[in-house]
């Protein structure tokens, strides 16, 4: 009501038409690019202020991520070290991409699922239950069952938030965050000493290890597992479901304008529920491939240190909720993470402890800048008339 454009003024309608061709390109590609550059620039400034050389720091991170591999490979150098680094980057990108799809899918329905981490863990634990039982199954079947269980687990946890949103209108931002903490502490309880799912070693707060038949195949030795292919497949599924199915039509309609979707006959509540459940399924899948391809078991302490799904929010935002964008953004953030890990980053150049936090900061800055198209457009075109750009605010009230 407060921001209805005056009905009489033709320019209110004209303003919409600005979002065509050129601007679509700008917001779709240039803005994320500019946002990334800007974020790195400011991150570099922080590095500089704390007495380090940003250029050598970034270069060390770049090489730590294995991005020099193609160059070394082409020039026929020894690629063993860089190859391993690159594998790690791709391996790290896998759950990032999957969790980012979780965020993106809910976003397309107008919902903000911050609960990826909880859904990740519930999926992880469901898959773990299947992976540590059913001995003697054939490998493809066992893997398939684990994946199904993980997807189900994530969908269940996401579905709770979806159910609450659909029935009592509880805002998903709050509920998913609470569900995160419940999943994290719940997980810590399951695997604590004398916890219900503690493994055989009596003094270790740790789960059993999954059977070999439940592990994912290694596709690039020694690190990269088939989960990366699953993530690529998930990107395709994401695109197809959104753009080529009636379900996707409904989700997008609700996301753009829930009131118009309702008028059109779409069951908005059902869409909310389904979107959060499907969103949770992606996050659950992320946990599953981490288990089957990397971890094989879980330590209680993992629940305190793994926040991959939070990083994934930045990935989804930077990737503009588009499949290709998420792939690229996922690789970038995975590189940031691998490149700053204590194993890959030379502490003489830049301390890894600092670098990890630097990476977090860069992620935050990326979110800021991607979120503020106007800032980028403003920097791009100078001050003239920037206030008139952008879209009229959404009519859907945010009950927060």
């Amino acid at each position: 009501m407060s921001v209805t454009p005056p009905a009489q003024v033709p320019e209110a309608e004209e303003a919409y038409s600005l979002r065509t061709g050129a601007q679509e390109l700008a917001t779709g590609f240039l803005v994320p690019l500019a946002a990334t550059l800007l974020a790195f620039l400011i991150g570099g400034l922080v590095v500089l202020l704390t007495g380090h050389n940003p250029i050598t720091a970034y270069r060390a991170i770049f090489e730590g991520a294995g991005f020099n591999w193609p160059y070394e490979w082409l020039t026929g150098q020894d690629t063993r070290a860089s190859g391993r680094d690159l594998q790690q980057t791709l391996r790290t990108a896998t759950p990032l991409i999957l969790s980012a799809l979780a965020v993106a899918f809910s976003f397309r329905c107008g919902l903000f699922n911050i609960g990826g981490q909880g859904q990740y863990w519930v999926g992880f634990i469901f898959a773990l239950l299947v992976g540590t039982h059913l001995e003697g199954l054939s490998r493809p079947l066992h893997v398939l069952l684990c994946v199904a269980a993980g997807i189900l687990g994530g969908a269940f946890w996401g579905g709770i938030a979806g159910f609450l949103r659909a029935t009592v209108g509880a805002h998903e931002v709050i509920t998913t965050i609470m569900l995160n903490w419940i999943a994290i502490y719940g997980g810590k309880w399951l695997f604590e000493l004398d916890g219900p799912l503690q493994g055989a070693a009596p003094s270790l707060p740790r789960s059993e290890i999954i059977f070999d038949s439940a592990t994912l195949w290694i596709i690039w030795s020694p690190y990269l597992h088939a989960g990366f292919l699953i993530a690529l497949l998930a990107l395709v599924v994401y695109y197809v479901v959104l753009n080529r199915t009636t379900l996707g039509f409904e989700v997008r309609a609700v996301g753009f304008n829930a009131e118009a979707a309702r008028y059109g006959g779409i069951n908005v509540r059902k869409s909310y529920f389904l979107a959060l459940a499907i969103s949770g399924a992606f996050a659950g899948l992320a946990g599953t491939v981490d288990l089957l391809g990397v971890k094989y078991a879980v330590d209680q302490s993992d629940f305190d240190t793994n926040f991959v799904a939070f990083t994934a929010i930045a990935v989804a935002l930077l990737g503009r909720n588009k499949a290709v964008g998420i792939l690229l953004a996922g690789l970038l953030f995975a590189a940031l993470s691998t490149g700053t890990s204590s194993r890959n980053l030379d502490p003489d150049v830049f301390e890894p402890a600092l670098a990890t936090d630097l990476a977090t900061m860069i992620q935050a800055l990326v979110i800021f800048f991607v979120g503020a198209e106007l800032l980028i457009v403003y920097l791009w075109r100078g001050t003239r008339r920037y206030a008139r750009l952008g879209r009229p605010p959404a009519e859907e009230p945010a009950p927060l």
Partner: protein
Amino acid sequence: MADDAPLLELKGITKRFPGVVANDRVDFDLRRGEVHALLGENGAGKSTLVNVLYGLYRPDEGEILINGKPVELGSPRDAIDLGIGMVHQHFMLIPVMTVAENIVLGVEPTREKVLLDEDAAEERVKQIARSFKFAIDPHARIENIGVGQQQRVEILKALFRGAEILILDEPTAVLTPQEALELFGILRTLTQEGMSVIFISHKLHEVLEIADRVTVLRRGKKIETLPREGATQEQLAKLMVGREVFLRVDKKPAEPGEPLLQVEDLHVLDQRGLPAVRGVSFEVRAGEIVGIAGVDGNGQTELIDALTGLTKVQNGVIRIAGNDITRDSTRERFDEGIGHIPEDRQRRGLILDFTLAENIGLHDYRNEPNSRFGWLRPGRLVTLARRLLKEFDVRGGGPTTLASSLSGGNQQKVVIAREVERDPRVLVAGQPTRGLDVGAIEFVHNRLVEERDEGRAVLLVSLELEEIMSLSDRILVIFGGEIVGEYGPDVTEEELGVAMTGGTREAVA
């Protein structure tokens, strides 16, 4: 009444927006104690001009003089300080706050310099209301008082800030004819006290009734300023539109067939849970247009929402061609044969970020041939869209254009195309011409009559009496959530006006 030295002058005001010149070197002046009307179609630039005057827009060119001195109007604050007050078309009142709070907002009386002095606020509001002979309860919440009262609060708000120039933007749009007459009375009192009024309207007869002088705007340009004496409706209409206007819609007498829409004792609650529709019964037959006339907020929106399944029915029955659809979902109703042109096409009728093809498929994307087994077939939607866009003469884009890039009139054509294409038995149209220009209005009106002649039952809900009277074969008047009268097409505006304020309620009951 008015002395001749201009109190206010606008000289050569130009205001551009991306892609449009809303005001093109417009001159305007206002004398002390006069009512000066700004007349023009939707989109002629009236609102832009007064928004410039109120400091909401900055003009690209031109100057503003008050008492002969040039002034800078950078914000509403500047305008207020210079004695300009404005009553916006959409009231600028905060529904959850009281009358007094709304009036003193921004100029609050205080105790001990920091605390809000509520008693003083109420006292001063009472005082000023008394001095202008307004009856108003300063303690009431805005959301609990009627529209006419709210408008008075808006006027008081301006007077409280010492306004000498009062701008009223389409003030009668939300009023019944009787309330409009009361408003004119108030305006006459104010001008006698020395206030000057700028009165914006697109209704000719009102302008001729209240204004001392009339300035006509068309497509952002000032066409002429003329005194009321000697001006006629035809002359003003021609100036306003730029050609002869035919306000009549050509149509044959209706040939009503069997009843397609039947409503019995319908009860509906509004968003706050208060009864909004209270025991409404009527029917619409094949091949007739039934108009629902009423002042905004008397249950029309809830009635439409209940018919289309967007809100829950408390009690009563709705039938389409004899089938009870009272408990059906919106989608089921669409499939039963309801077509719905919604009141607000940008909020409801279209998904602006969707392409035209997707918008046209909004109801039928799940049905063959647009999809099969849950798989969407975008090619089919595009083919359908291409045909409809041509048939309905939609300009400004093809099937893959985003709906947001069309003009309002073309957007409305897309909505109508979608609804009519589904061959509905009952077509519910809520304010189908709101915000459209004359050309688009003619298109919509003719199309509605065509649909009637196709044998559909058309229910037209509109706040524009002229529209109701020129299109409807039968007219129902809604007041306070009840149908308080039924009239033939030859009813007079006065009769309807009385009924719209509940005047004939007893007579009907």
